[in-house]
């Protein structure tokens, strides 16, 4: 998990670079010898057929690949795994002091006052999992910890004056 955001950032930067380069090239083409619009349209529409296919396929593949990774397995694992209650309130978390590693666990997350976010950062400081902490509802967040150590919890939903200080931690053993 820790490296996913690095990959996302790199993918984004490469993608953005390609988009900018391509669009700049199109813009610069207007400085050269002009082509009649009918000619450009003919070429453009032919190329668009392929562009449409590429986009369509990319969207379908991305969707299909992402589904198995959805974090909503909660309901399925309820009952069999170890549960830990998490309560968020302005401006602190009530947490278990420690949880076991290498065994599936479920955090039952709720809040008593306003919306908060339960964001777990691993010992290296990377965000590894999160879920909203909402009054009147319990969200089940399933996490399998592999590395023991101190995990920091930060609030990930704006909740008022000390939102940025709303932080806690637990030990993974």
């Amino acid at each position, binding site marked *: 998990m820790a490296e996913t955001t690095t990959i996302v950032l790199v993918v984004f930067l490469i993608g953005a670079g390609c988009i900018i380069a391509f669009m700049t090239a199109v813009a610069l083409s207007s400085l050269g010898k002009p082509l009649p619009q009918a000619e450009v349209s003919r070429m453009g529409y032919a190329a668009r057929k392929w562009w*449409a296919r590429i986009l369509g396929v990319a969207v379908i593949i991305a969707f299909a690949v992402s589904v198995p990774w959805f974090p909503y397995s909660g309901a399925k694992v309820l009952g069999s795994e170890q549960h830990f209650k998490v309560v968020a309130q302005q401006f602190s978390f009530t947490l278990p002091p420690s949880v076991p590693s290498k065994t599936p666990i479920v955090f039952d997350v709720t809040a008593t006052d306003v919306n908060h976010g339960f964001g777990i950062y691993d010992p290296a400081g990377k965000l590894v999992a999160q*879920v909203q902490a909402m009054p009147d509802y319990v969200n089940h967040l399933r996490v399998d910890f592999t590395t023991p150590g101190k995990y920091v919890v930060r609030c990930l939903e704006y909740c008022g004056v000390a939102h940025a200080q709303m932080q806690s931690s637990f030990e993974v053993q």
Partner: protein
Amino acid sequence: MTTTLDPRELSAARRVMWTYLITGFAIFALMILIGFSMRMEQAGWIAYAPQTFYSLMTLHGIGMITAVAVASMGELWYLMRLETVLDERLAYWAWGFIVAGAIAVVISVLAGQFGAAWTFLYPLPFVGTWWPSWATGFYLIGVALVTIGWMMWCTQMLGCVLSRYGGFRGALGWDYVFHRRAFEQSGRTPPPPQAYAALVAAVDGVLTGTIGMIIGVALIVHWISPSVVIDPLWAKNLTYFFGHAFANLTIYMAVAGVYVGMPRYADREYHTSVALAVAWWGTLVFVAIAYFHHLYMDFVQIRALQYIGEAASYLSSIPTALVTVYGSLMLVYRSRMRWSLGSLFMFGGLVGWIVGGFGAVLDATIPINSDLHNTLWVPAHFHTYLLEGVVLFVLGWTFMMLEERSGSISSAAVRWLVGLGFFGGGGLFLLGFYIAGAEGVPRRYAVQPAPGPELSGLASVGVIILLIALVIVLVEAIRLAAIARRRTA
């Protein structure tokens, strides 16, 4: 453009447009300074009490969205006025409601220190507040007034589009798409591209404005009588339904100016095609349902809605990538493009829209969203297509008007400076958000964990460069406006 308006009607229409545009730019100028100060605060260059930071964050959010909405509304109103009859008085009433709402919001934040963020997510406006209760009321009523003004504009737009093009069937171009031969043989033509923007903005605007009013009224009732409680999940759905569409529609309104302006700069023709019509049908639907991505991390949300959210978020990029931006590239490719500030802004806006959209699509992928939700990645992508998208579209339209009326353009040196400032400085500003987001730095933190502050400093340097470019833009606008005035005098 050929127009059937007589000079008096034309100048009345222009007055409406400039009223909206200048209002938008004035709010924008103030909000950008507030944004700059927030970024400097996050860098540790200046110090704010957290209350001040969050109040200013609230004002910046609602103010910016209102600013770009008002400016885009003025632009699109004028474009549609060239197509059909629109009553100026109604446009001024809508404008009046928006300005009244904006004033109420400013009072609520500056005098009352309201700071529940512009998304006013229930129950935050009422719990653990440092502002007086009247400030909450002022804020909610202010946003309601803005929404009423927006809905008045939408209703007027809807009425005119439907009567001008023959009901929904005509305005959507149904027969044009499905019975093309008969349609064309009868000598009819489909609505022009800008009319699709107007239709979609109007329909989705009325729909989501209504949703906004429902949650707004619920909150105002709770404000008056706290014993009336609201379901937090229901509130979240309605709030984001409204907020997402309001912010998103500004792009679709402003891009109408590109449909009209780009062909003029490129000296080419641009007409409605079947692809364009169908693309806007898609946009009509996706803008309304993509908001589910704001609730990805609410695991209690109905599961199917999460799937719909991801699908709609992906699909909403297709009309843009396949039709609007692609079509514009075909206009520019090996054309006799006249590059001026106006055309540079329009083209740059398309780049920003696509780049920001790419950042958004990544974030709209649920497993990735687990790592990016409510990190600075979110302001990263929306600032990309708002600052380097909508704002540039509106600036592009404004400069096209100024250039045409003054008969002159800015020098190449000015264009380079502005381009470098906007994309170099702006790029640096955005990069700060993107990297911090990938590092897991949360959004809406007055004081950020590492590496937030360092990146905020880097971003602030980018903002300074951008601000210099904006000052040059302002000077150029005034210069061109003065020439235009002399020419007409």
